[in-house]
C-alpha cells in the first residue's frame, strides 16, 4: 500500500523541530519526505494543518485479558488504543492469572496477534504479585516481557524490591514501580485533604506515595538498576524524582492525563468514575506535575487505562473499583489542557508519548525518518468534539470526562504503514464520527 500524506506538520522529537513536509508511505516504511512531494500512483490523504507525530506508545495500560474479559479484552483494548492514536501499548501484568510466568506472557502475545496494535507485555516482578518471591525473570524476559512490575499494588518489602532491582540488571529490564505504602493508604478512598474532610471519606495522604518513591529511588541508586515510577501524582514525588535525577539515579517517571487534568474536587460529584488509584490530588499537586512534565522530571504521559464494567462502577463510592478508561481520551486531553495553554509543545508531546516511552521500554527509536518504519499518529489540533462514551471501542465506559469538549483529536493511526484508524471527520463537519477503525471487523 502506497499513500501520500499531504501538508502535515512533521514533528521530530530528537531534533525538536516541526516542519511542513509531505510524507510518502510505501509498504511498512516511510519512502520519502519533502515539501511538494509528487507521487502519481499513491493515494493522497490531505492532512493539512495536522500534526504528524511518531506513533504514540501508551506505556501503562490494563487490557484485562486473561481473566477479566468483561472489562476488556486484548482485541477491544487494542481497538481503543488505535482509536486513541496509539501505535503500541504496554500491558500491565495484573491479569488473572497474573503474568508472572512464561506461559501468560506467551498467551498475551498470541492473543495480541489478532489485536490491531502491538502489545508489549509487562511481567510481574514477584510470583503472584505477592511481593514475596521473585518471578522467573529470565523466563519472562525471554518470552518477551519489556519490563517488570507488580503494578496494581506495591512491593511492601524493601528487601524484595532490592532483589528485583538487582536481578533485573542482568537483562537491563526496567522495573516499573507502583509507589504506595499500603499501611498509609489502607481504607482510603480519595486524596486526603480538604475535600476528603468535606465528604467524610477516608483519605489517602500524599505521603503514602512519597514514602515509597523515596524508598525506591534510594534502592535504585544503591543497586544501579533502572527504575520507572508509574502514575506519579503528588508534588512531593515530583520533587524527590527531580532531586534523584540531578544525582544521576537511573530513574524515569510517568504521569496520567487524569492526574494532569483533574483535582480531587471532582470527587464531590460522587461520580465513581473519579475513583482511581493513586487518587486525584490537589490543585497544587496538578501544578507540580505539569511543571515536572515541562522541565523533564516526568518523562512520559501514560494512560493507566483501567476499564471496568458499568455494573461495577454504578455502586456506592466505597464499593466501586478504582480506575479510568483512558486510551480514547488521552490525546485530546493532553492537547486541550497542556498544549493549548502552552504548557507543552507538540515536540514535547512527541517526546512524552512516543520517544521516551519507546526508549524506556527498549523499543526502536520512535522518530519519523526516510527508510524508517511508518508508525504515525496524526492529530488535528482544530478538531473540537465532545467525549462520547458510547463511541468508545473499549469495553470500559468508565470516564469522568464524558461530555467534555476537547480540541486536538487523533485522526489517523498508522502502524508499520497500515492505517489502523482514520476518521472521516473534518473540522467543518459537526456530526464527525471520530476514530473509524480500518481493517477490523
Amino acid at each position, binding site marked *: 500500500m502506497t499513500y501520500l500524506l499531504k501538508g502535515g506538520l512533521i514533528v521530530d522529537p530528537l531534533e525538536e523541530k516541526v516542519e511542513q513536509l509531505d510524507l510518502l508511505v510505501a509498504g511498512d516504511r516511510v519512502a520519502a519526505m519533502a515539501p511538494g512531494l509528487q507521487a502519481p500512483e499513491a493515494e493522497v490523504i490531505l492532512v493539512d494543518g495536522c500534526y504528524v507525530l511518531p506513533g504514540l506508545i501508551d506505556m501503562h495500560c490494563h487490557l484485562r485479558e486473561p481473566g477479566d474479559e468483561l472489562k476488556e479484552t486484548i482485541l477491544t483494548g487494542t481497538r481503543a488504543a488505535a482509536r486513541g492514536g496509539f501505535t503500541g501499548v504496554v500491558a500491565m501484568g495484573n491479569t488473572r492469572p497474573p503474568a508472572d510466568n512464561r506461559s501468560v506472557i506467551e498467551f498475551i502475545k498470541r492473543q495480541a496477534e489478532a489485536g490491531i496494535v502491538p502489545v508489549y507485555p509487562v511481567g510481574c516482578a514477584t510470583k503472584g504479585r505477592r511481593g514475596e518471591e521473585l518471578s522467573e525473570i529470565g523466563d519472562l524476559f525471554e518470552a518477551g516481557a519489556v519490563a517488570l512490575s507488580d503494578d496494581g499494588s506495591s512491593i511492601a518489602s524493601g528487601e524484595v524490591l532490592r532483589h528485583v532491582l538487582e536481578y533485573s540488571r542482568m537483562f537491563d529490564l526496567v522495573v516499573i514501580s507502583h509507589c504506595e505504602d499500603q499501611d498509609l493508604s489502607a481504607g482510603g478512598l480519595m486524596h486526603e485533604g480538604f475535600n476528603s474532610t468535606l465528604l467524610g471519606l477516608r483519605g489517602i495522604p500524599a505521603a503514602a506515595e512519597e514514602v515509597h518513591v523515596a524508598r525506591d529511588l534510594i534502592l535504585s541508586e544503591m543497586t544501579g538498576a533502572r527504575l520507572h515510577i508509574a502514575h506519579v501524582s503528588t508534588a512531593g514525588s515530583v520533587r524527590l524524582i527531580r532531586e534523584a535525577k540531578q544525582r544521576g539515579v537511573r530513574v524515569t517517571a510517568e504521569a496520567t492525563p487524569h492526574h494532569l487534568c483533574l483535582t480531587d474536587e471532582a470527587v464531590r460529584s460522587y461520580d465513581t468514575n473519579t475513583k482511581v488509584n493513586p487518587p486525584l490530588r490537589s490543585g497544587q499537586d496538578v501544578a507540580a506535575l505539569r511543571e515536572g512534565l515541562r522541565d523533564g522530571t516526568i518523562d512520559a504521559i501514560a494512560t493507566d487505562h483501567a476499564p471496568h464494567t458499568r455494573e461495577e462502577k454504578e455502586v456506592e*463510592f466505597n464499593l466501586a473499583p478504582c480506575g479510568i478508561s483512558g486510551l480514547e481520551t488521552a490525546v485530546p486531553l493532553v492537547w486541550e489542557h497542556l498544549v493549548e495553554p502552552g504548557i507543552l509543545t507538540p515536540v514535547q508531546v512527541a517526546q512524552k508519548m512516543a520517544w521516551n516511552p519507546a526508549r524506556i521500554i527498549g523499543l526502536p527509536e520512535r522518530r519519523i525518518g526516510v527508510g524508517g518504519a511508518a508508525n504515525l499518529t496524526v492529530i488535528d489540533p482544530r478538531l473540537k468534539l465532545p467525549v462520547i462514551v458510547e463511541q468508545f471501542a473499549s469495553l470500559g465506559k468508565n470516564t469522568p470526562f464524558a461530555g467534555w469538549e476537547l480540541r486536538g483529536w487523533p485522526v489517523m493511526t498508522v502502524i508499520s504503514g497500515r492505517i489502523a484508524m482514520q476518521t472521516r471527520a473534518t473540522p467543518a463537519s459537526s456530526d464527525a464520527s471520530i476514530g473509524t477503525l480500518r481493517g477490523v471487523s
Partner: protein
Amino acid sequence: MNQFGHKDLLGLQELRPDEINLILDTAEPMKEVLGREIKKVPTLRGRVIVTLFYEASTRTRTSFELAAKYMGADTVSISVATSSVQKGESLGDTARTIEVMGADAIIIRHSATGAPHLLAKLLNARVINAGDGSHEHPTQALLDLFTIREKKGGIAGLKVAILGDVAHSRVARSNIWGLTKLGAEVRLVGPPTLIPPEIEQLGVSVFHDWRRGLKDVDVINVLRIQLERQQRGLFPSIREYTRLFGLDEDKLQAARPDVLVLHPGPVNRGVEISPGVQDGSHSAINEQVTNGVAVRMALLYLLLSGGEQSDLSA
C-alpha cells in the same frame, strides 16, 4: 413545588440560612402537636414513607417513623443487614423497586458517603439523608440547632464547641454547616488524630487543649467515641481519651455558667461524658430526642405537603 425549594434533603451544605430557619420555624408548631394527648394530624394522609437503613439505628429510625405516623403517613421500614453487593442487588435497583411500589419519600441511612445523592439522582421520590458515612446527618444537626435556638433564643453569635471524634462524625459535619450558616462561632476540640485535615477552611477553629477550646463556650456538643478508633491506633486507650477529652464537671467549669450540653446519642456513659454531666442540669440530651421528632415532622411536611396550607388540627 413545595414551600421548601428542594426535592430532597441531602445535607445542610446545600441549604441557605433562610431554608434552615424555615425548617426550624415549622418544627415549633410540630412540637406543640407532640405535646397533645392525641398526637396525630391528617396532613400526610395517603402518603407512603419508607425508611431504608443499611446501618443499625434505633433512635433515628424510630424518630422518623413516629414523625411520619404523627403526620398521618403510612410507613414501611426496610433493614438491610448486608451491603448491596453481598445481597446481590445494587442500591439503585433496591431503591427503584421501592419507588415503583409507590413510596413518596425514601429515608436512607448508608455507610457510604453519597449513597443518598445517588438515589436522589435515580428517583422521583423524595430522598432524605438519615446519615451517609462520615459525611452528613442533616436531621441530627437540625434538631441540635432547634434545641440550641429553643434554649438560647438564637444561634448567631454563640460559641459552640464540638468535642471529640470529628474525623468520623457526620453529626459534626452537618453541625458545622448549620451553625456557621446561622452565624455561630464553631470550635472543634479533640486530639489531632480525630480532627480531619484542612477543616479550618470551613470557617471553624481547632483546639487540642480543652482548657482553651471550651473556654467561655455557650454550647458543647459531645460526640460519641467508638472503641474501634482505639483499635486503629487513633488514641492510646479509652482511659486516656476520657481523661483528656471526656466531658466531666471539671472541664465544664471552663465554659460559660449557663452552658448547654448536647449529645447525639447513643451515649457511652462515663466515656465521652460523665454520668454527672449527662444527667445534670446543663444537659438537654433527652429534649434533643423529642425535638428530633418535631424537626422530622416539619421536614416531612415541607417536602411532602405539596404546598397546601394544611392545618394541623386533629
